[in-house]
């Protein structure tokens, strides 16, 4: 059993140690130097997360799962960075205006969570996977309910805790079944193949997988484990919503790929595959359809922007799940099991990057509007094109990218989902899943454009002053928008169409 863990080396986890070390140092400063401005802590924390993320980012994007972890670290950094501008709200909501007491952990905890995500990306067995996931999840519980004078935040914290505990329970249950059926914690294809090929165990393994997937679905926000997302996104402090929306989702897809990889390798054995491939992908197709429908149709009637972004994140998770269908079309090489996952990991990375580049500034915009106009409703964005034309333009690009408007990265991302669906889906799947995907993409145009309409078509009230945009927020917004346009338009200008579904 111990040989399951022989695979790891200490050096492999250096970035996680660095992150935890910085978090511990920040907590020390917070405790022993209470006068030290907490915004300073936030800047240090954000920079260390971003630098770590850039440092571990593989040059080729998402060839390994480390790419997803790097993405999560950078998103964590962006979330903490919003905390700098959002500090006043944080102070008011934690201990009353004028005091900064007790706000230090708010900037240190995300680093611990990011360390958890990094370990997760390195995990090759269920125990490491579970422990890393819990490091991430426990920090998130605290963060979601951090604004203790804000009823919405407390409610979000409690809901997240209760539902999160349930999903953890399911994951542990699945892990127990997995160990029982294979006699090992290792997530290697060989281990699973042994269990799969011995008679009488297949049902048990499939049962284990259902529960393990349920845990992963909770993290990515896929149906039927999506219920927490709208409430928690709406109630949680906005920087935490960014963290949950991007970093935690990236972690969820790490888990999903880690679990899916051995399963798919076993399915490529002909005698197993002929029996079970259809069932596994059928199960996934139903999950995809439900996620797409719930996310995209649920977003339509929303009037709170954070809640809308919550539903949108469910819908986008549905589009990312579609990418998993595409794996059936990649060639399985003779040697090097898992190589066929490279394009899948790459596309998931690309989609999450496009989603993050648009979602992070969208939440920033919500926070800025909230600070100036005191509301997170759609109507608070009214007439922004008149009062802040540049900000309105930046927000427009972000939401256009989320909707999948061409010349933004979001279009290329959705395009890849559709290619995966059309290539990987069997004829009978296509007949019902393709119309659902089309309807959901069209619905996306409807609800994302509601914000653009509000900004451009409505007139501002007499009392509306321009929204103040601090330097850091503006810089993040501009950077994200430039990246969205760059990644979205570059492949369209180049002669090789390969850039459309692989590479940048």
């Amino acid at each position: 059993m111990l040989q399951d863990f022989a695979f790891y080396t200490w050096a492999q986890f250096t970035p996680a140690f660095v992150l935890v070390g910085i978090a511990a140092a920040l907590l020390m400063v917070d405790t022993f130097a209470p006068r030290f401005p907490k915004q300073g802590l936030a800047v240090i924390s954000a920079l260390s997360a971003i630098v770590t993320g850039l440092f571990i980012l593989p040059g080729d994007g998402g060839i390994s799962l480390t790419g997803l972890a790097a993405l999560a670290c950078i998103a964590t950094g962006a979330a903490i960075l919003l905390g700098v501008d959002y500090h006043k709200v944080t102070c008011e909501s934690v201990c009353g205006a004028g005091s900064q007491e007790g706000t230090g952990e708010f900037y240190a905890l995300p680093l611990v969570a990011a360390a958890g995500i990094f370990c997760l990306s390195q995990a090759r067995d269920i125990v490491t996977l579970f422990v890393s996931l819990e490091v991430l999840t426990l920090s998130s519980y605290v963060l979601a309910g951090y604004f203790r004078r804000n009823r919405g935040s407390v409610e979000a914290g409690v809901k997240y805790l209760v539902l999160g505990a349930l999903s953890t329970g399911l994951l542990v249950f699945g892990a127990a079944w997995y160990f029982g059926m294979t006699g090992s914690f290792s997530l290697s294809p060989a281990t699973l193949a042994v269990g799969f090929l011995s008679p009488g165990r297949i049902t048990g393994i499939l049962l284990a997988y259902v529960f393990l997937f349920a845990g992963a679905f909770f993290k990515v926000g896929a149906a039927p484990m999506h219920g927490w997302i709208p409430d928690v996104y709406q109630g949680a402090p906005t920087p935490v919503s960014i963290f949950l929306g991007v970093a935690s989702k990236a972690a969820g897809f790490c888990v999903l790929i880690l679990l899916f990889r051995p399963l798919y390798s076993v399915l490529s054995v002909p005698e197993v595959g002929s029996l079970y491939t259809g069932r596994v992908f059928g199960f996934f197709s139903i999950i995809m359809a439900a996620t797409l429908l719930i996310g995209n149709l649920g977003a339509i009637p929303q009037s709170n922007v954070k809640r809308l972004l919550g539903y949108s994140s469910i819908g986008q998770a549905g589009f990312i799940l579609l990418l998993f269908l595409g794996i059936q079309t990649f060639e399985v090489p003779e040697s090097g099991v898992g190589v066929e996952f490279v394009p899948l990991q790459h596309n998931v990375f690309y989609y999450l990057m496009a989603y993050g580049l648009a979602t992070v500034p969208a939440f920033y915009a919500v926070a800025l509007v909230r600070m100036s106009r005191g509301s997170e409703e759609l109507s608070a964005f009214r007439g922004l094109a008149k009062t802040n034309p540049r900000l309105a333009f930046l927000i427009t690009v972000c939401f256009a990218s989320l909707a999948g408007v061409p010349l933004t990265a979001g279009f290329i991302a959705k395009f890849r989902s559709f290619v995966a669906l059309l290539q990987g889906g069997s004829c009978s799947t296509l007949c019902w899943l393709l119309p659902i995907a089309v309807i959901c993409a069209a619905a996306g145009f409807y609800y994302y454009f509601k914000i653009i309409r509000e900004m451009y078509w409505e007139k501002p009230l007499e009392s509306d002053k321009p929204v103040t945009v601090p330097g850091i927020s503006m810089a993040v917004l501009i950077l994200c928008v430039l990246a969205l346009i760059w990644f979205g338009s570059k492949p369209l200008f180049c002669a090789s169409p390969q850039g459309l579904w692989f590479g940048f």
Partner: protein
Amino acid sequence: MLIWLILIPVLAAAAIGLLKAPGRATALVSATLTFLLGLGAILAYSGCIDCCCCGAECSQFTLQPVFARVMLLLTLIVTLGAAVGLKAPNPQAERSWAVSTLLISAGATGAFLSDNIISFYAFHELALIPTFVMIGYYGRGDRRSISWTMVIYLGVASMVLLVGLLMLCLSFGAFTFSGLAANVAAGVGNYSYVGAIAGLLLAGFGTLVSLFPFHSWAAPAYASAPTPVAMLHAGVLKKFGLYGLFMVADCFGSHCGEVFGSWNNLLLLFLLGNILWVGYVTVSQTRLDDMLGNSSVMHMGYIFLAFAAYIAANGTNQLAVLGAEALIFGHGLTIALLFLLCGQVEDQTRTLEMDSLGGLAKRLPTLGFLFGLAGLASIGLPLLANFVGEFTIFASCFNGTSFGDGLMNIGPVQVATFFALWGLVISAVYMLRAFRRVFEGEESDAAKRAVALGSGDVLAAAFLAFFIVLFGCIPVTSLF
């Protein structure tokens, strides 16, 4: 070099929108620059795919198809005309109008020059967005619901189209028009879904071009749109759908009957709906802008007729392609000029109700002359640009049909053409009636409000009218 035809307007739009550069002047500079550059590119074109490389990767834009060159020329002329004639109610509106003009023109140029099918699709979407925003913000009448209807119609159509294009590309293993043609010629590809693909393409492209049962978004949208948006959308951008259909059909060459053939009879029925049904709807309009919007929808029927003739002849009917090119070009110029003049009428008289107008030609003879010219062009008078197209299309429908054996080899296309010819009469009715009600007769109160046209107004209209006459004498297709 071709990439600059897209980058210049985009950069100019960014300068106006984000850096507060003056609207009309910047748009004029950009439109003039692209006009000259594009004209140079078309004249200098010698068969090489765009040879400019950016970094390691070559740009995908090409002038290879004749159709692309025709469309580029049309885009350049209409954009310059719209920029010259740009006249907004206030400075802020002027900036928005200039930005939208430039973005629509950049998107249309990108779409027509793209070899990559996904870029072709994406650039068109880029051009649609300013259209929605402008109609919703500056439109006439019930602008929000008109714009929202348009978003829903065109949004769904675009999704249907994207699925159709993806299925097409995946079935034939190429994502470029040139690659598609090469694969079809080499016999590579899977023909089992072609019927469904053709249906999706016809529905998607058809909605974008306002093919009969999917047309109801179009006329109100054009009528409501601010002048430059109406000019560019009705004149240039809408033709994207027809351009796409002809490009795809061209890739299939002699296989195109296999792909689109099963839909041809339904298409004939629909296009007769455009010509006859919408034609009668046009006759009954009481506002000038509604009349022009509907007439534009009606004329699309003729170009679809050319497509049907092309398909029915299994891609051997080159006359149909020539006719479609010429009519797309002529109609683009004419409808742009008509919308420009319609904007000037409203600007001078504050109304577009034809009943309250009248006798405007006495006040503004230049306007009356130019409108008459454009109206006659739209009816299809010889020596004006539309005639070339309409005549060639009708001729192409009988291309290869011999009357020697009685009427035995008259097919559905020929039968449809007999009905379609009545469209000419209908156009004459509504266009001449409109001219009489607006420009002739007793001088109305509205006409008395008219002062004088600005020099920009006359210049823009004369510029477009010049090309209508020029390409009426020299068919545009004979240039390439």
